[in-house]
């Protein structure tokens, strides 16, 4: 089995830590973030979520990282000549007032080289940091589910449909505190 360098993930984490928090950050909120539970041998997993841009300026997701994985890439499954393959996406734009869904068979976070001592199981919570092109970042807690069939419901719906789970910028801490996002 191939080993993926952990250093890359750490480097991105360090970069994220240095990035200026907030500033002119677009107001992006993450919803229904989940990771598919995979067979214990899997060295590549997939993460899905919906990103809403509630701000007035475009936002662009440029990367993600977390201690649970050696490396995270934004990927899109594309169909070409009747065959599916994956393409790395450098820049995922979310228009102001718009949203973008990362879901099975389309866009996803490719989670490479799980680092934990045990394979992720349904019910586990995994924090990931999303990075945007304006330097802002967003902490999102992904919940591990077996299939998309039981991942459709918003695990935080008890906070009301409009309650943001987490947000970027100075209000990040507040929103995360209420919405259940972890990783701080």
């Amino acid at each position: 089995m191939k080993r993926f360098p952990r250093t890359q993930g750490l480097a991105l984490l360090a970069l994220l830590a240095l990035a200026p928090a907030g500033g002119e950050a677009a107001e992006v909120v993450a919803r229904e973030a989940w990771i598919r539970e995979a067979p214990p041998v899997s060295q590549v997993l997939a993460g899905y979520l919906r990103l809403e841009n509630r701000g007035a300026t475009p936002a662009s997701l440029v990367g993600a990282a977390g201690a649970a994985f050696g490396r995270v890439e934004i990927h899109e499954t594309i169909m070409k000549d009747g065959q599916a393959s994956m393409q790395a996406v450098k820049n995922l734009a979310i228009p102001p007032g718009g949203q973008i869904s990362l879901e099975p068979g389309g866009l996803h976070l490719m989670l490479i080289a799980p680092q934990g001592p045990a394979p992720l199981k349904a019910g586990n919570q995994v924090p990931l940091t999303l990075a945007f092109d304006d330097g802002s970042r967003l902490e999102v807690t992904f919940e591990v589910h077996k299939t998309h069939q039981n991942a459709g419901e918003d695990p935080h719906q008890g906070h009301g449909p409009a309650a943001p789970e987490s947000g970027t910028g100075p209000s990040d801490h507040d929103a995360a505190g209420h919405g259940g996002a972890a990783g701080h």
Partner: protein
Amino acid sequence: MTQNRSISPKFLLFVLAVAVAAGALSTTLKVWLLPHARARQVPEQLQGILLDKTKPVPAFRLTAHDGTTVTRESLAGRWHFLFFGYTHCPDICPTAMGDMAAVFTNLEAHPGLLDTTRMLFVSVDPDRDTPESLKQFVPYFRADFLGLTGHIGEIENLTRALGAGFRKIPDKEGEGYQVGHTTSVFLLDPEVRLTALFHPPAHDTQLIAERFVAIRDLYAKEKQP
């Protein structure tokens, strides 16, 4: 007199045109009126799923994750769903296998039906997918699912005959590769012929289960004298 004897080229052209038109019309009528010799009537609910003509599966020889040899002959007498994928595939393959596990759960409502139904995951990445790695991947989705791998030529024989395909795509960094592949689920009847295709996104697993039952009913009817 001379005019009567020689036939004008225009007239010849006219006769020719009429003949061609009549020929075309009669062919069209024949095709129309004659009963379809081999194509079957596809019920509306199975349009786009059931093939109007079955396709034979050629001989092949692969190894299952439990070490047994699987050939064309060993598939006879049972219904088989086939999916072509690979264990290093994080999105499409687990999604499809999870969906098929849900289809099989739905089929448990029909007593005895699963005794003659199997799900096969055929690796399109035999370099990395050994029987041992398939053993840790395929039954995870459902204990009775079977993973197959083997010589790449044998896998290509199978994909070519079914109209499926796959290709290795190296990573840009040159670290590894992914495999592009067909994402349809292929259904083989007990005579080991391709009889239906389920295309993604096929998340409505209840619908797939119902359609599979309808296809089996239709097959049973066709077999009646």
